[in-house]
C-alpha cells in the first residue's frame, strides 16, 4: 500500500524551508513532489526600485553563501550596458574572491553532507576549515558573508599583500588535501552512505538541463569558466573534474576535486596579480537602453542575469536571475525514485541546494 510522507517545509533534514511530498511503498520512495517559495522575497521586483548602487547591495542578498557571484554577474551586465571595462587587476581580484567563495561553499556543503551521513566529527572539521576561509575573505574585504567587493567598473578593495593571502591559501590547501578529501574519498562511512545512492543518469541530467557539480557528476563536462571565460579565467590553467556515476558519491568527488582546482587557480591568480588600478577611475558613465545577459559559474553552477535598462534611468527596468538551484532542484524527483526513505535527506542535500537563491 502506498502512503504519502511530507518532509518539510521545516524539518531537521532540511537546512532551509522547502517541502517534499513523497509517495512511498514501505521504505521505498516511488515519487515525489517538490514545493518551494516558503521564503519568497520578490527581489527581482524590489530591484526595479533600486538605483545602480543600491541594486548591487540588494542582489548580494539573493544568497548568503555565494553572495559575491551575484554582484559579480550583475556588475558585468551593468558594465556591458555602460561600456566600462574593469582594469586587469580588478579582473584577477574578482577571480580570487570567486574561488575563495567556491571553497567556502564546497566546504560548507561537505560539513552538512557529513552531518546527514551521521559523520559528526567530519562536520566539525569542515566547519573549522570553513572558518579559516572566512578569515581570508575577511582579511581581503573586511566582511565574512557579504563581501561588497564588486562595483561597476571593477572592485572596491585591493589585495595589498598577495603573499600573505597565498600563505593562508597554501595552509588551507594542505589541510584539505590531508584531512577532508582523503576522509571523504576513502572512508567506509562516506562510501556506504553515498555510492549508488540518488543516481541521476546522464540522459536525465541532459533532459533536466542541470548545471554545475550535479551535471559534472553525471558525466556532463560543462563549466562556464571554461566554455565562456570571464574575468581572468582565460589566463589561468585549471581542469574541470567530471565523474560518470551520477550518484551522491560522484557529486562528493566532483566537489572534492573542485576544491583542489580552486586552490590551483588561487595560487596562479595571486602569483600573477597584475599591478594597476582596481576600478575605472573618475570615468563618467551612462546606461544605454538595452538588455545585457551574462552568465557565471557559481559554486552550485551556472547563474544567469538578464539586466534591462532604459537610457537616462537610474533604476533597472528589469532584472531576471536564473540561479543554479532553480535549474537543478526539479531533478531531485528522479534521484529519489527507488531510493530508501532514510536516504532522501542526503540525496536532496547532495545537490547543495540553496533555497535562498531559489526563493529570491
Amino acid at each position: 500500500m502506498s502512503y504519502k510522507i511530507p518532509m518539510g517545509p521545516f524539518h531537521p533534514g532540511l537546512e532551509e524551508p522547502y517541502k517534499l511530498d513523497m509517495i512511498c511503498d514501505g521504505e521505498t520512495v516511488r515519487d515525489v513532489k517538490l514545493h518551494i517559495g516558503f521564503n519568497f522575497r520578490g527581489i527581482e521586483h524590489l530591484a526595479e526600485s533600486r538605483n545602480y548602487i543600491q541594486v548591487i547591495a540588494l542582489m548580494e542578498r539573493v544568497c548568503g553563501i555565494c553572495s559575491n557571484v551575484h554582484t559579480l554577474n550583475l556588475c558585468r551586465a551593468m558594465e556591458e550596458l555602460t561600456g566600462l571595462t574593469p582594469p586587469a587587476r580588478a579582473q584577477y581580484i574578482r577571480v580570487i574572491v570567486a574561488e575563495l567563495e567556491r571553497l567556502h561553499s564546497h566546504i560548507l556543503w561537505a560539513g552538512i553532507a557529513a552531518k546527514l551521513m551521521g559523520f559528526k566529527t567530519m562536520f566539525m572539521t569542515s566547519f573549522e576549515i570553513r572558518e579559516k576561509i572566512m578569515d581570508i575573505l575577511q582579511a581581503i574585504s573586511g566582511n565574512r558573508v557579504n563581501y561588497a567587493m564588486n562595483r561597476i567598473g571593477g572592485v572596491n578593495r585591493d589585495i595589498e599583500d598577495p603573499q600573505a593571502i597565498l600563505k593562508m591559501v597554501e595552509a588551507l590547501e594542505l589541510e584539505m588535501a590531508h584531512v577532508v578529501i582523503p576522509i571523504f574519498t576513502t572512508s567506509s562511512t562516506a562510501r556506504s552512505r553515498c555510492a549508488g545512492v540518488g543516481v541521476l543518469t546522464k540522459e536525465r541530467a541532459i533532459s533536466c538541463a542541470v548545471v554545475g557539480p550535479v551535471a559534472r557528476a553525471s558525466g556532463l563536462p560543462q563549466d562556464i569558466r571554461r566554455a565562456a571565460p570571464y574575468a581572468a579565467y582565460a589566463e589561468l590553467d585549471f581542469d574541470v573534474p567530471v565523474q560518470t556515476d551520477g550518484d551522491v558519491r560522484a557529486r562528493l568527488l566532483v566537489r572534492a576535486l573542485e576544491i583542489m582546482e580552486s586552490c590551483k587557480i588561487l595560487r596562479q591568480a595571486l602569483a600573477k596579480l597584475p599591478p594597476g588600478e582596481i576600478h575605472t577611475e573618475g570615468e563618467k558613465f551612462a546606461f544605454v537602453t538595452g538588455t545585457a545577459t551574462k552568465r557565471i559559474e557559481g559554486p552550485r553552477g551556472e547563474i544567469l542575469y538578464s539586466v534591462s535598462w532604459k537610457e537616462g534611468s537610474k533604476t533597472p527596468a528589469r532584472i531576471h536571475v536564473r540561479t543554479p538551484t532553480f535549474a537543478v532542484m526539479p531533478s531531485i524527483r528522479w534521484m529519489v525514485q527507488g531510493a530508501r526513505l532514510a536516504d532522501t535527506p542526503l540525496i536532496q542535500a547532495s545537490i547543495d541546494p540553496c533555497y535562498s537563491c531559489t526563493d529570491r
Partner: protein
Amino acid sequence: MTDTTTLLESVSEKLGITTPWVRIGDALWLEPGLKGVREVAQAMNEVHARFITITAYQLLGDQGFCLEYHWDLDGQLLGFAFRLASNSIESIFDICEAADWIEREIHEGFNLTFLGREYEPLQLRQGDTPGVNLREVKL
C-alpha cells in the same frame, strides 16, 4: 565533431529563417519571425542545446509582454525573443522538461498562460493570486 557555427546554420535552416544570428554582448540572437516557440524548442533539441531559462518582460503601455528564451549550445549563449499578442504562449514543457519550473514561475509572477499544460502551484500559497509579484497593474 560538428562545430558550433555549423550547428547554428543548421538551426536557421531547420527553422527556415534567412536573417543572420546577431551578437549582442555574450549572446547570439535569432529573430524567430513567424516561427512559434515550439518549433524553436524542437530545433534546439535536435542540436542538443541545453535549455537555460525564460525571461519575461512587461512592455510599456499596452504593448503586452515579451518572453526571451535562452539555450546554451557548446558554451554559446543563444536567445530568441517572442512578443506576446495576447497574454498567452504555447508551453514547451512536453518537449523540454527543464522549462517546467520557469513556466510555472512566470505564470504565477506575471499571470501569463502557457497553453497546453496543467499547472501546480510552485511559489504561490493557498489564497495567493497569480500576477501580484511582477505584473504592473495599469491604472
